């Protein structure tokens, strides 16, 4: 892929920051805990 094509694809599909990914994963885990997919997570 050329540099220009890279830039174009980056414009079409804006990248998601690690902050946002962390929030998404945190709430996915919270949902899993809520619906007992993960029960009594040990420490």
């Amino acid at each position, binding site marked *: *892929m050329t540099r220009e094509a*890279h830039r174009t*694809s*980056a414009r079409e599909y804006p*990248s998601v*920051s*690690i*902050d*946002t*990914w*962390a*929030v998404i*994963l*945190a*709430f996915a*885990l*919270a949902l899993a*805990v*809520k619906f007992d997919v*993960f*029960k*009594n*997570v*040990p*420490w």
Partner: protein
Amino acid sequence: MASSISLPRVESGKPLLNAIRIVPGILLLAGIGYAAKILEHSVNAYAKARHWTFPNIEYVLWAILIGLVISNTLSIPRIFQSGIATYEFWLKLGIVLLGARFVLRDVMKLGGISLGLVVIEITLSLALMTFLGRLFKLKPKLTSLLAIGSSVCGVSAIIAAKGAIDADDEDASFAMAAILALGALALFTFPVIAHGLHMNDVSYGLWAGLGVDNTAEATAAGALYSEAAGKVAVLAKTARNAMIGFVVLAYAIYWANQGKAEKVTNKAAFLWKKFPKFVLGFLLMSLLVGFHAFNKGQVASLGNLSKWAFLLTFAGVGLRTNFREMSKQGLRPFIVGAVGEVLIACLTLGLVLAANRIGGL
């Protein structure tokens, strides 16, 4: 540029390859973290069985120490580097999940106190670092980066500001090296000073959150004192992180007016782009728990998931601290950072002790 403090790079277009590339490093973080947990348990049990008087060394310190020893004695193969860099991700995941352990009332109370102290701390830190940068004749943009890094939130703030004020990679690298080296020192000095002063968990947590610049180090410095102090440190640091957009925006406007950075056309969009989204996640999680979306057992599970995420973070803090690489970055920025950080640490300690005396933390 030193590998331990290089700016993160993401290769687009190969998501599957990128995902596979981070696996070895994540496994290394998990391995070190788990070894730290085992060491905490076994060393304490061994000392107890022999009736030795031995300080309780927690997993936090073990994880950092193992990481430090590996990064400063061995050459970490490239295959692990991408995965080690994910420690920031685990940190933010841990902070959002930790929101579950905060009652909203505490967030409002402590967050309010923290925000008040944060505004004072940021104002004084910016003024102090700018003065020191001029005194030591550092490059103006390097001074700006050091001021932003030491007043708001370390490496993330420097990365956010670098693009906004159009600073050099080299300047960003210097500023990050100074902030990281001093953060590593704070990890070991803050708890010792606090024990000497007999600080309570809330006071110490606030001090760690206000006085230690990088979020990972602030979290670790808090957790090294006690679990409760660790929670407060995260809250105070989160309040500080929330200010990142405003400080970076102010600097971006200043440098644009000097004709040395691009003009900010849409300030609201700029603020949203720079705002750390995990702060919103933390508040939302706390809000959900406040509205009883989770039962007691589920809240405990979320708290434990947060601890696992932090475990990987602490291993990463040790692994990416390479003193040899940092020493190559030059002495002057380090001296400015060191003088500034010591003064900021004293200042924030004074603020917290005053708040404790006035409001009773």
